């Protein structure tokens, strides 16, 4: 395990090994050309989505396609809230997101603390069991889970999307937090113990504050998962009022909301709206993002 988890510097290495300056700049030019081409490929679909979301319905099915509407229809972004249950779905997604993140981060930290700081019989075996759930496809457990939630009368509520995350949630986050705790010197715990602190205090007042970067990383990736997840809501939710945004988007795709008129502009506005919170989150927490992904790769 590397402990070096600094954010990646933007420009890392410049090796000016080329023999002549001309050749050097020629190469740089080619590399920039390649980068621009890739940028074009990555950006074009997003740009098309954004431009479509601002189009008037009469501007949807036209040839050649309009790249940018002359009169951007910003009211499309208002219409989606009026024509569908977007508000309710947003509320549900926010509830699932917040509680899911809370449960997943809290339980991952607590469990990781147990694995990192205590010696008990069977610990390594249990940790191995925990790690091995990483390769278990959720498809194997989804049917019995469905039956269980059916027995509990939890189907068509948000509980199946929240409660399991308070109970361990994800092996990957447990692994990540454990690795982080292991980098914190044990002597700090011992010092606190001598001062009379119990394990609860050590956890909340010492380790968690020191692990803020890792906790934030877990919280971010947990939120993205909950916000984007489609499969579990599809299985566990039935009625429109209980949908999350991801599922609502699918409903919106199929619902006859525009009486035979094109609705691509609305679908695109809805897609953009669902994606924006994640993009904002990315820009606000960029350095945690890279760090989190890199930490996930280091175990390889």
């Amino acid at each position, binding site marked *: 395990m*590397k402990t070096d988890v600094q954010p990646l510097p933007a420009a*890392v*290495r410049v090796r000016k*090994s080329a023999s002549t300056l001309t050749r050097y700049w020629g190469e740089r030019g080619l*590399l*920039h050309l390649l*980068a621009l081409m*890739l*940028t074009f490929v*990555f*950006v074009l*679909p*997003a740009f098309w989505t954004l431009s479509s979301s601002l189009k008037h319905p009469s501007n949807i099915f036209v040839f*050649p*396609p309009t*790249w940018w509407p002359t009169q951007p229809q910003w009211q499309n972004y208002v219409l989606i809230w009026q024509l569908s249950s977007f508000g309710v779905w947003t509320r549900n997604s926010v509830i699932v997101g917040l509680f899911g993140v809370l449960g997943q981060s809290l*339980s991952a930290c*607590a469990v990781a603390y*147990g*694995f990192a700081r*205590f*010696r*008990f*019989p*069977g*610990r390594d*075996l*249990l940790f191995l069991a925990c790690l091995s759930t990483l*390769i*278990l*496809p959720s*498809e*194997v*457990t989804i*049917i*019995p*889970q469905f039956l*269980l939630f059916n027995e509990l009368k939890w189907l068509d509520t948000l509980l199946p999307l929240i409660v399991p995350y*308070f*109970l361990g949630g994800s092996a990957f986050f*447990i692994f990540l937090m454990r690795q982080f705790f292991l980098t914190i010197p044990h002597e700090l715990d011992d010092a606190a113990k001598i001062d009379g602190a119990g394990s609860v205090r050590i956890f909340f007042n010492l380790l968690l504050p020191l692990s803020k970067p890792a906790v934030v990383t877990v919280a971010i990736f947990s939120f993205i998962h909950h916000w*984007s997840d*489609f*499969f579990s809501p*599809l299985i566990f939710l039935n009625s429109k009022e209980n949908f999350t*945004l*991801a599922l609502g*988007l*699918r409903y919106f795709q199929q619902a006859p909301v525009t009486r035979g008129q094109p609705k*691509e502009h609305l*679908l*695109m506005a809805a*897609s953009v709206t*669902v*994606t924006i919170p994640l993009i904002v989150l*990315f820009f606000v927490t960029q350095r945690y993002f890279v760090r989190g*992904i*890199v930490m996930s*790769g280091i175990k*390889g």
Partner: protein
Amino acid sequence: MAGESATLRLPAFFKISSLSRMRRREAIAGYLWISPWIIGFLVFVLGPMLMSAFLSFNNYTIVDRKWIGIANYVRAFTGDDLFWLSLSKTLIYAGIMVPSSLIISLTCALLLNQGLRLTAIYRTLFFLPSLTPAVAMALLWVWFFQPQFGPLNYLLGLVGIPGPSWLGDARWAMVALVIMALWGTAGGATMVIFLAGLQGIPEELYDAAKIDGANRWQKFAFVTIPALSPTIFFNLVLGIIGALKVFTPAYIATDGGPAYATWFYVLHLYYNGFRYFEMGYASALAWIFFAVVLIFTYIQFRWAGRWVYYEGELRE
């Protein structure tokens, strides 16, 4: 504490009564801290696994259950044409998706590692598509691939290529789903992990290669790739598991069609379990799927010793 040890008939490694008093307190605290995971593991993982294994030997439709032995497995292998079809479609998808995603991600990462000006901007723009939720991504690509009014066929038309119907054409739907998935993953986590791997390669290795007179290609083939092999391996394992589990894009964009061209395994499982409510059969499908994932992962780990190079590892 002798009475305790007599009643606790646990395997040796769970025997906490033989520990000293302090160690025993530590052990109990440890169990308490990991107890959320233990409960969650029993209730949401191990219990459901056993249940699903049991159900896979039953004809189970929620209202009715009957033990039928291995009939569900026999049915999958011999009586369900869509089983083999969905398995082969999934393997084909993974076979196209995983290598192309690794190559494109690595190309992007190499490019971002050249110290170009504007690297930060390129990196952000490559990365942003991977944030799009799967449903939104499928919807936007359905519209982007739209044969008559979509931008893709228009652009192809400009260079004289008549574009196909993409998602509506059985020959092109799979390719379209791969393009869609590449857009959403190539610049994402895979690329960032490659980038971190590239930056972890010690500069001395390149210096040594230079002294030996290696050209640029030789440096790439004999320094970069071997030094990067653990990262490639990691992305390969995760990439294959992810590709085998493909569901949402096909569910939203093609519903497995046209003419079952994108009828992936998990879609088949979903239809059997949650549309036809053949939950016994779907459980058997789930276990076969687990076996497939395990086999692929096992093969990769066995094969890894031949090409993955870990620095500091002792070799014979």
